[in-house]
């Protein structure tokens, strides 16, 4: 038994080295002073971190990515919070089916969704590319928003809401004063998870670029296909720090139970 345990823990250790090793390597190479990515690096320099701020395309696409993710998030909240509330609060026929419909964007391959949105939003509906980008990101954020918020509504006792209403509070007042404050951390966690999902998205964004408009992941993708200097390694480190920070907040807000729940 003991030996079996030791073998299993060694195996797990190797699995985690495989999982995290590449991320450590990318971080180390970001300090390479030369122009070619190498491991191990030949010295220590922050020049590629400086380079990120000097290549204007990175700064512009970073801003676009932030704006699209935040606006998309807002839209997804406006559409998703009422839906999540209705799906958790009321029992009605077709509820399971509607639930499935709201989660369906994750079933459609991202690259297929991106292409169909390009084909119809831009060409048939004649929308500007930025609008297509925003709509596409809202579509993929919606399932995350609804799932996380519905799961925090599961822990909310709707009797409290009924009590408030029986004391004379209006529906809307109860929603804002009783329901929302109770699921506050769930909503914030949903926003952060959806933000990361949208910020890292490639499959939709890759079709929604035009003159002067692109997102950071797409800019990184294009850059890597043309240059092989340590700039992308430096950006990667910054993105990983951002991810770790958001992850820490998500953990504080609702733990990691959401991730292991199917």
């Amino acid at each position: 038994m003991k030996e079996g345990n030791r073998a299993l823990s060694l195996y797990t250790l190797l699995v985690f080295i495989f999982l995290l090793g590449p991320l450590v390597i990318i971080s180390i190479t970001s300090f390479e002073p030369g122009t070619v990515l190498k491991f191990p690096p030949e010295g220590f320099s922050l020049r590629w971190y400086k380079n990120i701020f000097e290549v204007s395309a990175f700064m512009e696409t970073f801003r676009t990515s932030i704006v699209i993710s935040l606006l998309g998030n807002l839209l997804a909240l406006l559409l998703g919070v009422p839906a999540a509330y209705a799906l958790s609060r009321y029992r009605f026929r077709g509820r399971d089916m509607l639930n499935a419909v709201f989660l369906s964007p994750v079933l459609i391959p991202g690259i297929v969704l991106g292409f169909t949105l390009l084909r119809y939003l831009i060409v048939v509906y004649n929308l500007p590319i930025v609008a297509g980008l925003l709509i596409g990101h809202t579509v993929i954020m919606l399932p995350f928003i609804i799932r996380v918020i519905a799961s925090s509504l599961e822990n909310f006792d709707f009797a409290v809401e009924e009590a408030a209403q029986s004391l004379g509070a209006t529906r809307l007042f109860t929603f804002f004063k009783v329901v929302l404050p109770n699921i506050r951390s769930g909503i914030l966690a949903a926003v952060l998870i959806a933000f990361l999902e949208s910020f890292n998205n490639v499959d939709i964004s890759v079709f929604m670029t035009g003159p002067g408009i692109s997102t950071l992941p797409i800019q990184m993708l294009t850059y890597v296909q043309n240059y092989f200097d340590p700039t992308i390694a430096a950006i990667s480190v910054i993105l990983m720090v951002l991810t770790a920070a958001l992850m820490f907040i998500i953990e504080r807000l609702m733990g990691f139970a959401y991730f292991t729940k199917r």
Partner: protein
Amino acid sequence: MNKKAMVLLLPGLLFLAAFMLIPITLTIASTFVQDGKLTLEGYLHFFRDGYFNRILLTTLRVSAVTTLVCMVLGYPAAYYISRTSVRKKSVLLALSIFPLLTSPVVRSFSWMIILGKKGLVNSLLVNTGIIDKPLDILYTPTAMMIGLVHLFLPLIIITLLGVMENLDHELVRAARSLGASPFTAFRKITFPLTVPGLIIGGILVFVGSLTAYTTPALLGGKERVVSTFLYQNAMTLNDWQAASVIAVIMIVITFVVVGLMNAWANRLNPKG
């Protein structure tokens, strides 16, 4: 139906109808029409063409191997995590979630550093004298597969962990008290009860690999899979008809795989 519920659901439903269901339905419909006539020509053209069949085969092969490797690496790791101390468990869970939330561009790029001509693997192999010329690993299906395993391994670990946490440990204890060895208890109780989870995790990995774009685009070089071929047809060749046909083929494969494997997982589920 409840009227209040409907009012709250409507905005979201209209949004999804306008920006997902209708565009996809129209895309599907468009593949059956050519010059105003109903036809299967779009599809026949693809399957008669050896090039597309090769791409489809590469994609399926890479996805199948990725799924298998993820199962072999992920299952024991998830089992270990589920049995370890609370402290270790939360650290290992956090270390699995972190890559999952990290940009796929970053994660694929890290493999370019490792697998490249002057990358870590080649310099190790050349410096130790095992080989004298660097291997071509990057821009091959093998590189794609390694990148995809790295991309989806956390997903299968986390899925399996969820299943293992819900496992009734009383059953294992009962088996042990009746004289079963730890290995027998694992083989007769734990494993059968977690197989449906393994299949569900496998679906996620297989479908994810089948439709992933970033990893094959960065690590595959000229080697195409269906997703990069769809992109190439749409954006480089501007052949939207061809791209639509590929899109529909991808949707169909995804739904067939999910449906079949779900049915299989349900049949194996002892709780029915």
